[in-house]
């Protein structure tokens, strides 16, 4: 039954991807800018550097002289065959470029997720158990601050504190965790804290609200009454049931993290997909933007699928159909 469900969900993915691809294909073409100039590395203001003859030759070479629907169909046809085309600026295959960048985004997302969970779950649980105490107010204060604060600002402040004033951590850069785990942690620390805080802030509130709800349930009262140790009641009973709602938040946030944190990756010079997308947009590198957005869309849909399956595992009462 699970297999059938997964297949059906994957089939549902197809119309979503067609719509996303159509939308991104059209949107990048609405932004002013000329891909032929991009390819030559010519600034818009220096258009005179290109002769009409050269312009026509190049336009034909990248197929931009054909009607737009033909361009879309050609592109879609190639994608079905796993060919996302070449980047205009670098003339390298999109698939190669994206897979070069994806691990960095993945590792950072995983680290940020760990940081977020490590903050949010204990904070949410303690806040709920100690409702209306100073600990609760502190946790909720943190959550409010975390939601309200712009991530780029926190990033800059952390750089100033930990790199500039204290000199503990590098301000920018990247190392793969498999090449050098220690160096990776040094570099991932600040961006993961920023992204983890962003994730933890709303999650703390969710966990707290759900915990409060569960703690008032009859089964919890029964558990207390029969004299179970409080850790057992809180973690095994109340927390497990609270997490069902939290999974949705975590799932959506994870999808967002995997989509690449464009601003954070740019600030910390992190070589991920988010920065690739931003550069692609600035350079009007259509194939890069199209490829990256499609990848992000697929990630979203798959994470949603995983979240649904996870529900089932957490709560056997939920029916997938």
């Amino acid at each position: 039954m699970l297999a059938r469900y997964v297949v059906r969900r994957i089939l549902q993915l197809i119309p979503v991807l067609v719509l996303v691809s159509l939308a991104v294909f059209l949107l990048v073409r609405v932004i002013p800018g000329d891909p032929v100039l991009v390819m030559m590395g010519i600034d818009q203001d220096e258009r005179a550097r290109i002769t009409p003859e050269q312009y026509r030759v190049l336009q034909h070479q990248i197929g931009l002289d054909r009607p737009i629907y033909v361009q879309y169909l050609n592109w879609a046809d190639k994608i079905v065959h796993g060919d996302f085309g070449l980047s205009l600026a670098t003339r390298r295959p999109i698939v190669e470029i994206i897979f070069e960048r994806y691990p960095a985004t993945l590792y950072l997302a995983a680290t940020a997720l760990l940081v977020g969970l490590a903050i949010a779950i204990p904070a949410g649980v303690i806040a709920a158990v100690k409702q209306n105490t100073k600990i609760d107010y502190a946790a909720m204060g943190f959550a409010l601050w975390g939601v309200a604060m712009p991530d780029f600002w926190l990033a800059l402040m952390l750089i100033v504190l930990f790199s500039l004033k204290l000199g503990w951590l590098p301000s920018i850069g990247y190392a793969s965790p498999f090449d050098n785990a220690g160096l990776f942690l040094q570099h991932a620390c600040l961006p993961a804290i920023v992204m983890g805080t962003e994730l933890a802030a709303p999650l703390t509130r969710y966990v707290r609200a759900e915990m409060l709800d569960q703690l008032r349930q009859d089964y919890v009262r029964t558990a207390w009454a029969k004299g179970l140790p409080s850790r057992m009641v809180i973690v095994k009973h109340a927390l497990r049931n609270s997490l069902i709602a939290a999974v949705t938040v975590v799932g959506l946030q994870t999808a967002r993290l995997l989509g690449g944190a464009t601003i954070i990756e740019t600030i910390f010079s992190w070589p991920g997909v988010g920065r690739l997308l931003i550069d692609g947009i600035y350079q009007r590198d259509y194939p890069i933007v199209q490829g990256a957005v499609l990848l992000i869309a697929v990630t979203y849909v798959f994470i949603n699928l995983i979240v649904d399956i996870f529900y089932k595992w957490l709560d056997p009462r939920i029916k997938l159909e």
Partner: protein
Amino acid sequence: MKRLLVLILLLIPFFWERLGEGASNQPKRGGTLTLAVSKELALMNPLVNTSSTESRIRELMFEPLLGKDARGAIKPRLAESWEISKDGKVYTFRLRKGVKFHDGREMTADDVKFAIDYTLNPKNGAYGFADMEAVDKAEVADKYTLKVSLKKINPLFLTLLTDIRAFSVVPKESLPEGMRKPASFPPGTGPFKFVEWKPGQRVVFERFADYWGEKAFVDRVVMREIADATVRFTALQAGDVDIIERTPYEWVQQIVQGKIKDIGYATAKQAGARNLEFNVADPPFNNKKLRLAIAHAIDRKEIIQAAYFGLAETSDQRFPKDSIWYFDVPAPKYDLNKAKAYLKEAGYKGETLELMGNRGEVAEVEGAIIQAQLKKVGVKVELKILERASALEARRQGKYMFKLAGGSDYPDPLPAYSEYSCEPDPKDRHLNETAYCDKEYDALMKRAELEVDLEKRKALFKQVVAKVLDDSPVVAIGFTPRFFTFRSYVKGFATNSAGDFQPFIGGLSRAWIDK
């Protein structure tokens, strides 16, 4: 005796320090220099996409035929000498012997011919295509001699050859035809050779031990992209990088004032130009008197002070005051009484004038100051800040009144002043966005296009400049600098007026690490 001993002991530290200083002025070999750049490499083809940072990075590895010294004079580089035929159309270049590519092979005339032919093939999308369009053909006379024939006389030809954006020398057959691009850089002849490029992380270069000229001091140069200017400067202060380009003015001002210690700076004096241009084809600025009124009401010093922290220099011509292309001719000066008189003559009745600028540049600040300055003579100005692409369209179609315009550091007055030559359609403007059109001016420019003799060119351009200042389709404001900043242990680094990493006069190859 005891006193003398004390005196000597007291003096020792003083001399000690002096001795140390003497030693530290001697360049040291070795070490790695990390430069934070604002934008990363895109492509490993030295002849395509040579704009901005891309070409600055490639200047470490590749070289053009000729060089330009600090004052702009043309110097031998890969070509040791050259002769120009009597009719001015055939250039014979004698190449330097013993120049090695990074793969150890010697450079010959065949390689130079290949680079020129590659650039001229429209299928390759080479950046220098338009620059080299004047070339009819390149022929190899012997191993070290190349003959280049032009379609017509081009006084700019040698100047073009000093810039790798036209073309740089690569080994014969090292680049494939068409849009497929090489997986790695072909070997070059420059002071550094390419080691690796990890996209989004770093580009690494190594000192080329067989370089024909002055060899680099450092062993390695590493470039890292830090797009955000504030983070770039923070990374420099934190010691994550040794030198950065494009430092924000507010930080430079603090360094100049001594508020930030242990950071040095190098100035690219004329990285950008700022001008005020009028749409001469349509009302209200088809009225010359109104243009002159504005030209007299602008206080350049105040604009530079406010928008560039006083770090830029003013100029009332398209070239800086110390350039050989700056002429002693009468120009509109800041004079409010004259401005008011011109306004009266122009018949200005308090209409609102729209000033256009690009979003994201300093146009907002400059525009606000100009607005305030013109208010003093009773001119109402409304600012119209547009996105780059929209502003470009408005400029092309002539849908603006007057605008703040950027410009680059032109190597020669011919391209700079061609921007005011007549164009056929004022609704489809190309170079001349002002749509200024004057027969006398065009006749002068036609003569300048065919004049090769320096003194005669100077005489011609003096007339051109006088005409521009008199008719004022443009009011030059000044030149904006760009700053490299570096840790104090980085010595010997200099740049040119445009802000190149490795200009002919030295740059990263002359930098050394003192620690």
